[in-house]
């Protein structure tokens, strides 16, 4: 699936579609690192389901 910010407008409430091609290389590198950090954060924040789910 190719990511498109257009698809995210509703969810995020962003008015303007973003395009990564408009970023400078330095910014892209920075963004990449931020995404990596955030992905790690997301993965660490997943919740555990307590007790016996079936009961």
């Amino acid at each position, binding site marked *: 699936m190719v*990511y498109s910010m257009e698809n995210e407008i509703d969810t995020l409430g*962003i008015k303007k579609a973003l395009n990564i091609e408009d970023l400078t290389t330095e910014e*892209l590198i920075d*963004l990449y690192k*931020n995404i990596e950090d955030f*992905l790690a*954060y997301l993965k660490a924040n997943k919740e555990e389901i307590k007790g016996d789910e079936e009961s």
Partner: protein
Amino acid sequence: MMDKYLEDIDKDKTLVNSYNLEITQGTKKMIEDYHNKMARVKNAEIDRLINKYETLKFQTKEELEKRKAILTPVKTKIDYQAKDEYNSKLCDIVAQENPLSSWQFRYKFRRLLSNLKGNSNAELDKINECIGDIVSVFKKANIPLNKDDFRYSTFAYKYMEMYLSANRTDEDLKDCFNDIYWSCPDFIMHIKLALLKHIRGSEKELKTYLPKHLKESRNELGISSSTNVKKLYKTSMHEYEETRRSDEYKISEKFISRELQPENYIRESSVRINILKKYLNNAPIKGITDEERAKIFETSEEMTNLIYELENYNYFKPLIVEINERLKNKDSYKGKFKEKMKEINKVEKEREKIVSKLFPRKTLFGIKPASTDENFILAQNNTIKNLNGLYEELRIAEINDDIVSKLSEASTIEQALQFCTGHYSYFYNTLFDLLPDHEEITVEEAHDRLLRFAYCPFNEFINKTYISEDIVPEEIISKRYQLLGINISTEDLQDNLDALKKDVEFVERCIDIEKANISFEDLILINKIDKLD
């Protein structure tokens, strides 16, 4: 634009943190159920975000790779290996045409013969190839060799009869080798002596054919007989260096592979300033001026060549000591060669007499069959073993005569080294063992290194220094640079040559980068992209 992305991440982070999973009222079961329900909702949201940001990450990486491809200098299609091989062949021709080289070296006879020592199947291919090369020279010189020319011993004859037969296969030859080997492990040496005898016996004819042979080497490279090949070699070597040093891809390669840090090479880098400062007498405390930089840059190419020359001079110094020793004793060599040759001829006649009994021969009363008397075979083998030793002594007498006729105390170090490289058996049997790392390298590797060094067109001092002179080149080089305002101490050249070499390489790379107009910023970006997972 970038802020927008970061804001989004922040928003999503807030969203993730906004889920309240706990209630304080209700039974334990109700609290747990509520927690699980909300946890599932939160996890579903996190999964959606992971999917979204993984896609964005992939897309960002893809865009970065695109940028990297644009920033990376285009890989040139220059075939450096082919260029190097061409130069190597040119160097060979220069060496072959040098009067200091022996006539046998020009045919590579000694190099080929040195390979005839094997006693295992693994080396059999090489042995056969070398025999083939020698036989082929004889054929070209119109002195074709046939099986009867190998009646040097019964074993040499048996193998060469198979070798020269028209329809034999490699497998036949291998079987023949194994068959003979167990009866006489030394039979390759018999073939070697037989060939050596023919080379010596056909010296006149082979020398007559030599100009044609040398012309063939030139023709292979498309060089006319009127071309000054020494000059061509120098130009070609120079062009090679120029090409290599102006090849943007090649210059950038080590930065791209992260072997080198581009940050160290920018003008303001303290690493760069400190390296350049080392070369300046009265090094400035602050940075380096453009003039000072230019002065260092100007001398760096010459310095690279001098370090190469110095390194090799020290490596091959034992050879010069050897030559000087032999020259000191030159009066004792007179008549030795003739004396040895006479002795050999006598033993060769004995061998012929013994061997003739081992082949069927015509007599007045018809054909007399070959003797099967083991004593004759033993006598044949022992005589040839004795001859092998005598030929070795002859070789030493010959080399001594050659040294005296071609070299003197007034010869330069370069001439002496060219002599050494042009007398392969001398190098193989005597000089190689004098090299400091001879146990770690092959004779061929060492010989090739010597060949390249002795004929390097950029040598500065070995071609101007006599072998009898007692010099300390490090002192001469150091003094010369002091006069030019460049600080290189004798100690640097003697004890820290590797460190100096690295520094000079650094300076050369600075020059190449500046000349090629490569952007450090681009290299740094490429490097940063590569560091990403």
